[in-house]
């Protein structure tokens, strides 16, 4: 069945889908002699056929293939990758053999890994895993693909893109939500809709995890916010694992009641997930098979989103503020940071713009000398984890734009394309593929058109291209360009005229302006900016790219006259505002020296500016190593005192330690004086045999490194003899042993015995959750440290002794 037949069928009748596969196989103990459920397709196909038949007999119109985990990542993990084609082919053929006319839904689900930055899987690897599965489902004749039980939106995005690229039939996308309407990774229903709709999937839905009554309520939210067909596959209640059984406590009657509710809300496909059985599906089929779907009202939503937040542009007050501050143009310090991959200003600007009311954030990292493709993707990844507002990906580098939008967890805007043929041909396919909205500047190869009509002509050209690329016009956001009122006063009215006309002839398209250009070269710029913003909103402006920190409630008559070109030469405006001076904070920050900056950065645990500060110290100081060393140690000394006074707690110690480590690492690398610097001493750190705990040891290691020690981290579960061998080899100042468990503490005694037997003079210091001072004395350890600072303090004493 091809896509249009399937979608046409959904307009006329609801479809009944099969019920649970996994729990049915488990119940019948069919999984006991296979590694993964999909192996059954080739090892015991009759078992799979039995389940398929039971659902077909129960009245299912659509049967899901037993290929839930048949993506290349899971198959590879279990050594079945070379059987991928056989598994998927058999998963489809077995259904066809039972009933050639049934709709075969190729089942696709998670790889079991989170994509960066939540996890370590790359987006491209996730895509590849789903691409192979989708291609095989296509090759062997699945009618539709159902991507289901997804819990992470970025992985869902990868799966949709892979399916779209490799499969011709309809694509149904369903995720798993908690009763509060969010996935475990924090995505809400509307954000989910925004991604699924914008990527061009054919149907959307909910499955698994919660009980059918709760899921029915969520289906209502879905039906109210999307025009796509909706699928509904609840569990038979929330599973409880009691006395070796997975119990689903919901009855088939309760399941039916919830399904009927969902049907009345407007759901188009109904089936069952974990815990449901053929009896559940039979009941569903008896009630709903062949029924016409409930007609839903047409929705007019305009969603932009991130993982955890959605903005409906149709609902939000205009203008929508796009914060413009993440842009290094004319900001030397910011540019220097970006060259060093330092994202501290980006993060700070993001947090504060959102605090000041930005609805969206423009992200531009274009600086000569940076790898913009990597930097923009990294910035997008990091920003999305610290702020939740949607992003506007801003670059003139096409590859960077593509990586940027690919890494968005929701639906972003691209900033921007213009009327140049080459740009349109390159950017429209990206915007289409990733489902973004697109800012289109009404300029082209001939430059900025002078008149409103000329700009509208460019807009028309852009729309023709958009039509050609099948890119919906409603996703175009036109920018009719603002020039400075000081140099081109007549142009302001042309801009506003073009906007008003655009709203009439292209009402589906939105409007945006970068507001601050208008005031370039004039005093009291914000007076003009704010006044102009009001005029632009009256002309139909939807989005304003602005500095959210500025005051946006100024409406000044002189500025208005200037903008309306009634104040020729800006004479009156200048009379009133020439003496205007930009307000500066009354308590201007004292300019700090590089040494003071270094000291404060270590004290405040601020690692990100260290590289810049070190550059200056290396450039200007006679003995940069001594300068760095002195200031770092001075700061760490205060950090230690603050920790003792309980003014600082462990996270602050670590932040300072990481900043100090950064300083030492840079100075070592730059001055190539590793030998000299590391000569302050080597320390062996190890978690003893039998103990797998890493973190405590690493914290102590980080603090020691921050004092300039050379830490040799032997890792976890380290054999006692290996520690002694290492000590013999490197002659450390001390050996630090960590153990978290009472059961592994005796290993510490063993290391001390071995050390004594080998006559190694090195001191041993021990620590860890269960370790006590008393225990340290009992086993003749040289010292016990209750925390990282105590360990550092003791080892520094040893270092001084050794020096003497």
């Amino acid at each position: 069945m091809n896509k249009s037949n399937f979608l046409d069928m959904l307009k006329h009748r609801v479809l009944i889908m099969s019920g649970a596969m996994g729990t049915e196989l488990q119940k019948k103990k069919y999984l006991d002699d296979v590694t993964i459920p999909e192996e059954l397709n080739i090892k015991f196909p009759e078992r799979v056929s039995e389940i398929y038949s039971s659902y077909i007999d129960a009245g299912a119109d659509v049967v899901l293939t037993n290929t839930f985990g048949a993506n290349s990542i899971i198959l590879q993990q279990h050594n079945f990758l070379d059987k991928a084609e056989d598994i998927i082919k058999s998963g489809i053929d077995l259904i066809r053999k039972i009933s050639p006319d049934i709709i075969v839904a190729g089942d696709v689900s998670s790889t079991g890994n989170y994509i960066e930055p939540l996890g370590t899987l790359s987006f491209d690897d996730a895509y590849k895993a789903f691409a192979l599965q989708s291609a095989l489902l296509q090759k062997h004749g699945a009618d539709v693909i159902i991507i289901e039980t997804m819990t992470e939106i970025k992985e869902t995005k990868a799966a949709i893109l892979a399916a779209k690229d490799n499969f011709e039939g309809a694509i149904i996308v369903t995720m798993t939500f908690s009763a509060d309407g969010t996935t475990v990774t924090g995505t809400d229903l509307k954000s989910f809709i925004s991604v699924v709709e914008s990527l061009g999937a054919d149907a959307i839905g909910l499955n698994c995890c919660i009980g059918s009554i709760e899921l029915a309520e969520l289906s209502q939210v879905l039906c109210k916010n999307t025009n796509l067909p909706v699928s509904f596959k609840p569990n038979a209640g929330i599973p409880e694992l009691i006395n070796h059984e997975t119990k689903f406590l919901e009855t088939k009657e309760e399941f039916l009641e919830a399904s009927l509710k969902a049907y009345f809300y407007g759901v188009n496909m109904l089936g069952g997930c974990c815990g449901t059985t053929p009896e559940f599906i039979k009941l569903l089929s008896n009630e709903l098979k062949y029924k016409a779907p409930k007609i839903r009202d047409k929705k007019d939503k305009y969603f932009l989103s991130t993982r955890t937040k959605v903005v409906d542009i149709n609902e939000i007050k205009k203008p929508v503020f796009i914060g413009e501050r993440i842009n290094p143009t004319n900001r030397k310090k910011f540019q220097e940071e970006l060259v060093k991959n330092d994202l501290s200003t980006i993060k700070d600007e993001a947090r504060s713009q959102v605090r000041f009311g930005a609805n969206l954030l423009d992200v531009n990292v274009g600086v000569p000398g940076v790898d913009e493709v990597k930097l923009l993707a990294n910035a997008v990844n990091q920003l999305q984890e610290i702020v939740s507002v949607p992003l506007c990906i801003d670059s003139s580098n096409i590859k960077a734009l593509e990586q940027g939008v690919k890494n968005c967890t929701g639906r972003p805007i691209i900033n921007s394309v213009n009327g140049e043929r080459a740009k349109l041909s390159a950017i429209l396919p990206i915007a289409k593929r990733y489902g973004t909205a697109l800012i289109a500047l009404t300029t082209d190869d001939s430059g900025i058109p002078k008149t409103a009509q000329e700009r509208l002509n460019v807009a028309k050209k852009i729309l023709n291209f958009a039509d050609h690329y099948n890119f919906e016009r409603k996703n175009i956001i036109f920018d009719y360009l603002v020039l400075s009122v000081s140099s081109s006063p007549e142009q302001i009215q042309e801009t506003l005229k073009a906007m008003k006309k655009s709203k009439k002839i292209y009402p589906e398209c939105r409007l945006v302006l970068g507001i601050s250009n208008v005031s370039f070269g004039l005093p009291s710029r914000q007076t003009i900016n704010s006044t102009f913003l009001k005029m632009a909103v009256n002309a139909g402006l939807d989005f304003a790219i602005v500095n959210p920190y500025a005051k946006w409630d100024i409406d000044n008559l002189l500025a208005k006259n200037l903008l309306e070109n009634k104040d020729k030469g800006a004479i009156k405006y200048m009379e009133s505002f020439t003496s205007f001076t930009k307000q500066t904070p009354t308590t201007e920050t004292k300019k700090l020296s590089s040494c003071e900056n270094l000291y404060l950065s270590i004290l405040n645990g601020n690692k990100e500016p260290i590289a810049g500060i070190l550059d200056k110290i290396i450039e200007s100081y006679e003995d940069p190593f001594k300068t760095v060393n002195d200031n770092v140690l001075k700061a760490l000394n205060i950090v230690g005192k603050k920790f003792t006074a309980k003014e600082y707690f462990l996270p602050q110690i670590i932040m300072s330690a990481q900043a100090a480590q950064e300083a030492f690492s840079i100075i070592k690398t730059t001055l190539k004086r590793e030998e000299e610097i590391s000569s302050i001493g080597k320390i062996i750190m190890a978690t003893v045999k039998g103990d797998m705990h890493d973190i405590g040891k690493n914290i102590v290691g980080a603090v020691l490194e921050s004092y300039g020690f050379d830490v040799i981290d032997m890792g976890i579960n380290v054999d006692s003899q290996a520690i002694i061998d290492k000590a013999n080899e490197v002659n450390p100042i001390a050996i630090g042993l960590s153990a978290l468990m009472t059961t592994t503490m005796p290993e510490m005694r063993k290391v001390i015995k071995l050390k004594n037997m080998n006559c190694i003079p090195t001191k041993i210091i021990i620590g860890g959750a269960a370790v006590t001072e008393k225990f340290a004395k009992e086993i003749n350890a040289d010292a016990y440290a209750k925390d990282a600072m105590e360990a550092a303090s003791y080892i520094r004493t040893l270092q001084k002794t050794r020096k003497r």
Partner: protein
Amino acid sequence: MVNVSIVEISYSELLARLGYLHNKTKLDIRTINLIKENLNLAQKLIKPKSVIAIENITLHGNSILFESGYEIKSSNVAVLLENCFKAYGIAVTIGSALEKKRDDCLKKKEIFNALILDAAGSVAAEEVITLANAQIKAYEKKDNVLTKRYSPGYGDWPLEANKQFLSWIGTARAGITLNRFYHMKPEKSVSALVGVKKINS
């Protein structure tokens, strides 16, 4: 009876676990932001699950016999279960995604992030077991009371006993296993025994 799928990691519990002292520790906005960002990340990475076993028990000195034949030999457990007629074995986990991320941070030497994620995971696991415990308490009839929770590795109930204990509970279904050193995997998992006795016993 037990549903632990939604657990919110408490910011104040996280700070407390990290050693924050209300009237002494001075936190600046930047540090607060960084801690909260990691907390938000941790919240996205946890996937709480529980698995339980319930059986009637009889005590014979230091030996506790379960109906299925499972037996615990421990004087501490025997004291805990004195007068109990039934016991629950509870195991909970927050899944492995958080510790994978923490280990990735350690690998990249992002010790601060690793520290916060690790602590958030511990707080989450504690909250999950507390929630499961509370739900069992609510489920038990009002004339029954629960004992405190007790776990292998404490007193004379050795850590090695966790192998049989988890097998009795059936934790493999929730993805909880033991490594060769008897540490639970995922690491942020908790197993506990809780006795049930009549209120007037």
